[in-house]
């Protein structure tokens, strides 16, 4: 059942839908409607259009970043069927690489993308080859424990080398500009645009290149892909590496927005999981859209609940999705 469900989730990527999925438009309509209602309620609750508008803007901008982080996670899940618990910790590693480069050479924080992406790609490949590739057919608990262990190892390693002291990456010449009354920080906008751009690039890679076709083939049916001469093991490693590189990219983009600590990954891990489920497990575009939605939910929750844990709203959405549409917004119903 697992394979079927998962293949179904990946299906839109594997083969373009033959006929128009009317259900999809309907779903998009429902989501849009719920969002409109949510925003109107938020308006009534706060009594200030400016506050709500700012929340929407911030939510969308932050959501882009969640999307990019979740894209890596969903790719790994979709192709390798691994719930990668170390994703957040790897993000933290990339954050410290970025921080270290800025600190040591004084380079522009966004330039560290050039280092963070390949570095995380290599780390991802090494992790897969060294720790995970042997567990191919083994129980999911095994893989869970391995990635969980890895995340603990990475976090504590960072703690040892860099200390617990929170660190900041300053963006030279950061600016703010008003957007219909709301304030947008330049760094946030860049992070958002970067996330969208990289998301599009990943989509293009999956849909328009030989490698992408191979990845999709492996995701759809491993043995079949093997039969037509695809090196499945290599594709697995590459996919894990690409997924991890997404975390690297997100880290370099988000560096100037957050306070860098070794445990930073935890902060994003849970959100990213929810985004993955919301977007449809294994669906890269779904992850990006899901990220935007979760960003919005998080901000609107703060308005409703007077700033109680914003994760509360996120989890409510999560549970609703699990109940109503366990295959996610963009996944197809398992036949």
């Amino acid at each position, binding site marked *: 059942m697992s394979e079927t469900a998962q293949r179904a989730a990946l299906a839109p990527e594997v083969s373009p839908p033959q006929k128009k999925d009317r259900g999809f438009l309907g779903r998009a309509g429902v989501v849009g409607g719920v969002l409109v209602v949510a925003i109107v309620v938020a308006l009534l609750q706060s009594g200030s259009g400016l506050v709500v508008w700012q*929340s929407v803007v911030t939510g969308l901008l932050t959501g882009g970043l969640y999307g990019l982080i979740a894209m890596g996670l969903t790719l790994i899940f979709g192709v390798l069927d691994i719930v990668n*618990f170390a994703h957040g910790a790897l993000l933290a590693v990339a954050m410290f690489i970025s921080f270290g480069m800025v600190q040591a050479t004084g380079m522009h924080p966004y330039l560290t993308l050039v280092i963070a992406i390949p570095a995380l790609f290599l780390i991802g490949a090494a992790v897969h080859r060294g720790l995970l590739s042997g567990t191919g057919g083994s129980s999911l608990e095994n893989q869970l424990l391995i990635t969980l262990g890895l995340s603990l190892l990475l976090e504590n390693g960072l703690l040892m080398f860099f200390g617990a002291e*929170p660190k900041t990456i300053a963006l030279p010449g950061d600016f703010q500009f008003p957007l219909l009354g709301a304030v947008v920080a330049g760094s*946030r906008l860049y992070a958002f645009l970067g996330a969208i751009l990289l998301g599009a690039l990943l989509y293009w890679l999956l849909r328009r290149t030989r490698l992408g076709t191979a990845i999709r083939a492996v995701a759809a049916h491993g043995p079949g892909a093997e039969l037509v001469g695809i090196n499945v093991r290599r594709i697995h490693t590459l996919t894990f590496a690409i997924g991890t590189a997404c975390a690297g990219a997100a880290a370099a983009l988000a560096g100037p927005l957050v306070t860098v600590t070794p445990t930073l990954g935890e902060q994003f891990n849970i959100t990213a999981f929810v985004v993955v489920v919301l977007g449809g497990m294994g669906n890269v575009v779904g992850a990006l859209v899901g990220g935007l939605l979760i960003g919005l939910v998080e*901000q609107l929750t703060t308005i409703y609940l007077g700033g109680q*844990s914003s994760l509360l709203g996120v989890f409510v959405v999560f549970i609703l999705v699990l109940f109503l549409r*366990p295959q996610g917004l963009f996944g197809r119903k398992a036949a």
Partner: protein
Amino acid sequence: MSARKLIAALGACALLATGCGGSAPMGAAGAAAGRDEGPVKIGALHPVSGSNAVDGQQMRRGAQMAVDAINAAGGIKSLGGRKVELVTGDTQGKADIGQSEAQRLISAGAVGLVGTYQSAVSTNVAVVAERNRVPFVADVTASDAIYAHGYKYVFRVQPGSKVIATAAAHYLQQVSQQAGKPVKKVAFLHEQSDFGSGAAEAFTQAARQLGIEVGPNISYDAASVSDLTAQVTQVKASGADVLAVAGYYRDSLLAAKAIASVKPDLNAVWGVSNGAFDQPKFVTDAGDLGALYFSTNYHYDATNPQTAALREQYQRTYGDPMRTGAVLSYDAVQVIAQAVEKAASTDPKLVRDAIAAAQVAPLTVGAGPIQFAPNGDNRNAMAVLMQIQDGQVKQVYPPEKAESRPEYQVTWRP
């Protein structure tokens, strides 16, 4: 299967978040052998590993420096010059581990304990101390709840949460009046746990009595928050003329970033027990964003030359500025050592009585010597107002503790 995998994943998530608990082994003998010979042992419980390791390390060193100073001056004279030894425990910032470590140090013969940095850990250590009848002198512990239990063996050097918040309201009224811009409305932004909401509540109470309006009261989750722009926009829309902030380091830095980009129409940003605005590190991390921020908090006494000498020595030895937490640990060890000296005994009960009658000159800001009220609180504990001026944290109010004058205006305003 996918769903099952996910649930397993989330289960693991929860496991990670709560940590691997387990109750501490209890029931070890309270009275310990070996108190009458060898060095007099003082126990120090701090989080020297985990996410607060930096502060924990600082505080352990502060305690050690106090012990070294006492030994250099000839040890405990009333006990024939017996040396003092610091026995240490790592709480890892976890309440249950703090509890078992406290038990261990008491069993090892500690005549008193100092610690612990986190209120939750102190709560557990206080129980152990009370049960074993060994004095516990808290250095950093903001929560007032522990001091409402009627414990006999639990003391505290730092001003409590309510003392700080009340002082913050009074200082705000006085400073704003002196600047000719009396405060009317304060918006309060705070993290949502006991620490932040307790500070907000105590501040609101004190401010209302002074005729200052407080609202909106905005809370956030310090662990998961990644942006505070929307919250600060809410402050802006409320028309408050002062924003009070009670948060930890990371989230207060986020608040500063949000304030800098939203630019609400404020006269002042006012830290209340804030974990960032009086840290030298905040000055470099926030840069221009944090200029002229105020902070009401406990502090090492910058006007005391002895404190300055101690901090210099720390800086020389460890290559890092000594933080207030470490100075408070120094004070707490002094309290216990002087009590042993006065009691001329290592019997924890006698030491406890001597602490209750103590008069110890503090190196942290105080309105007088450290002296304990019946509930264990330091009567003369005092919060001081600090401000970031010219890239440095300066004590600015009240005048007798001031290094510089308060500048009541936020920089971005014309």
